């Protein structure tokens, strides 16, 4: 039997394996001769540019809002109000730079939240260590 930490690592790797985007063709760093210009353009498009992509009908749902979703929205707006970032920057970070897997895999406000955390570090308002420590401290409140 694997020790718990090992189990946790294996579960993490299993999930990571499952959320690789299904590209339905050979991937994993192909050689240059395998990427023609049409493929180059397809790979380098932004993941949020989804208009016109084929998809199947789904059930249209309304949704209750989580407390953290509401707070994330407000935090992002207030960060903009107080000049920490502007709309163009937010869009680039939330939609373009997250990559396909996170773009499609995380909840809408999940992307907003990751981006808000990153902007604090990227613009050196907090260090990565301060953020990590804060996250650990908040988590302890719920233990």
């Amino acid at each position: 039997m694997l020790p718990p930490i090992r189990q946790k690592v294996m579960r993490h790797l299993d999930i990571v394996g499952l959320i690789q985007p299904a590209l339905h063709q050979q991937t994993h760093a192909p050689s240059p001769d395998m990427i023609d210009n049409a493929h180059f353009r397809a790979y380098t498009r932004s993941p949020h540019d989804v208009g016109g992509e084929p998809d199947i009908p789904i059930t249209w749902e309304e949704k209750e809002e989580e407390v953290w979703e509401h707070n994330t929205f407000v935090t992002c707006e207030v960060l903009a109000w107080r000049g920490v970032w502007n709309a163009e920057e937010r869009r680039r970070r939330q939609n373009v730079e997250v990559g396909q897997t996170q773009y499609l895999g995380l909840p809408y406000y999940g992307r907003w939240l990751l981006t808000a955390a990153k902007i604090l570090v990227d613009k050196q308002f907090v260090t990565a260590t301060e953020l990590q420590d804060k996250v650990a401290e908040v988590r302890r409140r719920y233990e």
Partner: protein
Amino acid sequence: MSDDHDHEDEHLHPPAPMVDEVSEFEVLEIAVRELAIEKGLFTQEDHNQWTDYMHTLGPAPAARLVAKAWLDPEYKKLCVEDGVKASLDVNIDWVNTMPTKFGTPSDYCNLRVMEDTPTLKHVVVCTLCSCYPRPILGQSPEWYRTPNYRRRIVRWPRQVLAEFGLQLPEDVEIRVVDSNQKSRMIVLPVRPEGTEGWTEDQLAEIVTRDCLIGVAVPKPGITNNAKRPVRKAINPYKH
């Protein structure tokens, strides 16, 4: 030894996930908000003020705008020509209503009112994200934000509208309008039959959020969006 044995049992039968376990999203949200306040990037008061502002938002002003436009041809003209100016008559100032006093930090200040005719139906999307005229229409519904809606409405609008319960005759042209960072849209639907002599209040009641996005049309007696499944939140925000 018995201690080891207990642990082994746990591995064979891992405990069910704790429902009250705090999520990583919740932890990170609190951490980011508290750090931003500690570093003086904004105050708790700013955050509260924005939350209070959020509570004032909803589709009512946009519904009122449509009702007024149905009753007053001059006002309708103004709506189509200058949606921002027309918004003032329903108490939405796109610059000064929000706490910033410089407009919304993410929405900017251009509202376009798309006028339907008996042979032309507009429907709004934001293919690149989920741009939405929040100051006059409130928060966007979840389905509006889905990649699925954004993918398909621009390519198969007639089919997607039918899924929303809106089946349009073939001779009605559908125009899908794509919102963007600077410009937000609402639909000004055709005033339905059976509303002759109605007051502005009566008319505003049948202009639902879905009508204003364009996935439904107003009907006498229908004052709510179509019933859809509601995905429950784990820790719901109480409005």
